[in-house]
């Protein structure tokens, strides 16, 4: 029994894409609330109460976004009050709240996405599209930190040799620029050897394959199918205007029809899927342990 983050990266990526995609292309307030609450719950469930700074940053941003809209946009019929000869309307305020919920929700989803999708999983997905692209990414992932480490080494070496003669900024900048220029040479030199090593191991002799580190198990397929089914219903609801909501000039919302309700429920279920999975896994472990 695997937890959600151990599922096949393609399944994970499709799930994140559909959850954030729907949130971005629909403006139905209830859907936004589901997305935001789900995103926060998902993040907290994975990280507990750590990452306080992230939370503060997101909620301050939420306030700024929510307040910015009514101050900038003066559309809408219902005037709440007048500020600096400009009307602040109810509709603009609600619209601001709604889009802030959408943006912060998506940001929370993306945060969880970057935590779950390690470089290796991204490589697996790009590799499925093109093995060459995946190789380039992998080399870049290796090279960037390598470059940093080497320049730190050169800096230390030059300091201990007395290259930085005086303890001032100008001398430091001069030194740094010299180091940078030699780093370019070093990178090229290094590149030649790496290229030799690649060619010696048969790079460019024909079509590349890609080693698969993640398999598609029955659970992956089941998860993917359920996810796609729910996505289909939600899309249908969003696409056929069953979930339409108009803010300007005045708020007009008809009660969602059958399809709309189904769409909302499917979206909610889709968001709950990994959390349910996590719960079941935890329960199973507890049961197994107590059985031992």
């Amino acid at each position, binding site marked *: 029994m695997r937890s959600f983050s151990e599922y096949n990266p393609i399944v994970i990526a499709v799930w994140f894409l559909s959850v954030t995609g729907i949130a971005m292309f629909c403006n139905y307030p209830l859907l936004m609330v589901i997305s935001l609450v789900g995103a926060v719950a998902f993040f907290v469930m994975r990280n507990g109460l750590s990452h306080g700074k992230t939370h503060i940053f997101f909620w301050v941003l939420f306030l700024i976004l929510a307040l910015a809209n009514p101050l900038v946009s003066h559309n809408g019929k219902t005037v709440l009050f007048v500020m600096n000869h400009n009307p602040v309307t109810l509709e603009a305020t609600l619209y601001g709240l709604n889009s802030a919920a959408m943006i912060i929700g998506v940001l929370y989803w993306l945060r969880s996405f970057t935590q779950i999708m390690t*470089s*290796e999983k991204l*490589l697996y997905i790009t590799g499925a599209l093109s*093995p060459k692209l995946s*190789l380039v990414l*992998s*080399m870049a*992932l*290796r090279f960037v*930190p*390598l470059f940093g*480490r*080497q320049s730190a*080494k*050169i800096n*230390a*070496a*030059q*300091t*201990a*040799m*007395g*290259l*930085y*003669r*005086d*303890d001032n900024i100008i001398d430091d900048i001069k030194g740094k620029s*010299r*180091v940078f*220029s*030699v780093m370019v*040479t*070093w990178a090229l*030199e*290094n590149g030649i*050897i*790496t290229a*030799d*090593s*690649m*060619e*010696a*191991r*048969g*790079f*460019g*002799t*024909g*079509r*590349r*394959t*890609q*080693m*698969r*580190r993640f398999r598609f198990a029955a659970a992956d397929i089941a998860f993917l199918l359920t996810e796609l089914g729910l996505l289909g219903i939600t899309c249908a609801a969003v696409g056929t205007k069953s979930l339409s909501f108009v803010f300007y000039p005045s708020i007009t919302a008809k009660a969602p029809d059958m399809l709309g309700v189904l769409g909302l429920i499917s979206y909610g279920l889709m968001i709950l899927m990994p959390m349910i999975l996590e719960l079941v896994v935890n329960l199973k472990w507890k049961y197994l342990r107590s059985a031992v």
Partner: protein
Amino acid sequence: MEILAVSGLTFTYPQCAEPAVSNISFSIERGEFAVLCGATGSGKSTLLRMLKRELTPLGEKNGSVSFGGVELSQLPDRRSASAIGFVMQKPEQQVVTDKVWHELAFGLENLGTSPDEISRRIAEMASYFGIGDWYDRDVAELSGGQKQLLNLASILVMQPELLILDEPTAQLDPIAAADFISTLRRLCSDLSITIIMAEHRLEDVVPLCDKLLVMDKGQLIANSKPSEVISELKERPDILCGMPAAARLYAELSGSGSSPLTVREGRDFIEKGYNNTTRGLPQALYEHSDSAAMEFSDVFFRYSREGKDILDGLSFTVYEKEIFCILGGNGSGKTTALSAAAGLLKPYSGRIKVFGKRLKDYKNRSLYRECLAMLPQDVQTVFLKSTVHQELDECHADITELPYDISHLMDKHPYDLSGGEQQLTALAKVLASKPKLLLLDEPTKGLDAGAKLNIIGVLRKLKEKGVTVVIVTHDVEFAAVCADRCAMFFGGRIVSTGEPNEFFSRNSFYTTAVSRMTRGYYDNAVTIDDAVKLCSLNGRKEKPCS
């Protein structure tokens, strides 16, 4: 059956008058372990690169190289890539991808092997090499020795029939190097992979190999069993200086019969051939000067708050005008100690004094002006310009004041120099600030025996000029020859100090081959010179014991 046959091979680089390798013919049998040796610049690398089609340099080539009866240029691409494996010198630069498992898979992915097959072969290889523990790690986290093993493993997954290695252990410490070489031996005997390897560090490989090829100035001057090669080349001290201690001893004493190669054979050679009426040489008493050049007292250092102490109450004193060698295993904190001495790392407790003044009292980087200088392990990090001339101009170095000559290198790019030349050029740059205290981190790494001797000479001259030298090294033989005092570093502190003769004769593993060979028979013999003197002093046994 021969797997590789080279006949009449001559190769000239573009715009060079002299061929880099000329008229070379030899063959290697399937399953043989051949070692190729020779001084830097003798054409070893060029020859090896001629044996791997993908790496063959541009230039004028004559003669033929055939692999398994087929001319090398006629091999299909994929067969040529997979059947001949090539491991290079620098562990870091051959690595292509960021993860260990991906690196292992890289070659097979290029060959278009099916994903299931890749997984199977990698699993097999990872188990054989014991890579399982670091299979999921980033390559950057591995040590040099692990990286080199990974390079080897990622070539072996392609199931090569011939493995070519170009000085694979040059950048490794002795323990990792011995590990690497024993892995090679195992491959050779378990899987009958044919191996041809160029090497400077011959102490470990010569006793293991089936065939020793010696190159000199582009020519192949010897090609037979190691003991025979040594008998043939007795008169060539320039080539023998890289050979195992036992073989050198045999040559210096112009012994007869087949040459000893290992410590055990060397011991036999001495005990059967020479008396031991005089057990030790008179020891010249070493007296250090009274003033200290560098003093560590109770220095503690760690890299992060949660980490463990790398320097754990380190205390030692280096006196003026001496050569002080710090020896110790990998990860014992030697390099960290040196960086702390150079003021690059700040210890959280303890005192470091240089010439009686505390490090932090050297204000405004005056420490690095005519006082202290450090040459790092990776000498390439010293170079910033595109010619040696510009390098030296930049730091106002005067090559006429150097105790050695590098005037012939002035117009070359520093990256194009050989390891020994790079070391000397970097040293010239470091000496430009006229340091009184010189810190060297592994100055013999990757150098051939000739270049090492050169460095020893240079260090002695510097000492005469009044420079104090502190060296951190793995190289026991080097320390035995050049140090005034040696220290053993372990667990973040120095556990013993002494003059080389008594220091090395007290150690039983961390000591020179000669010391191991003569232990219990002679006293305090540490270097080849000691042993040769003792043997000739005692004279041959009249009738060798049967």
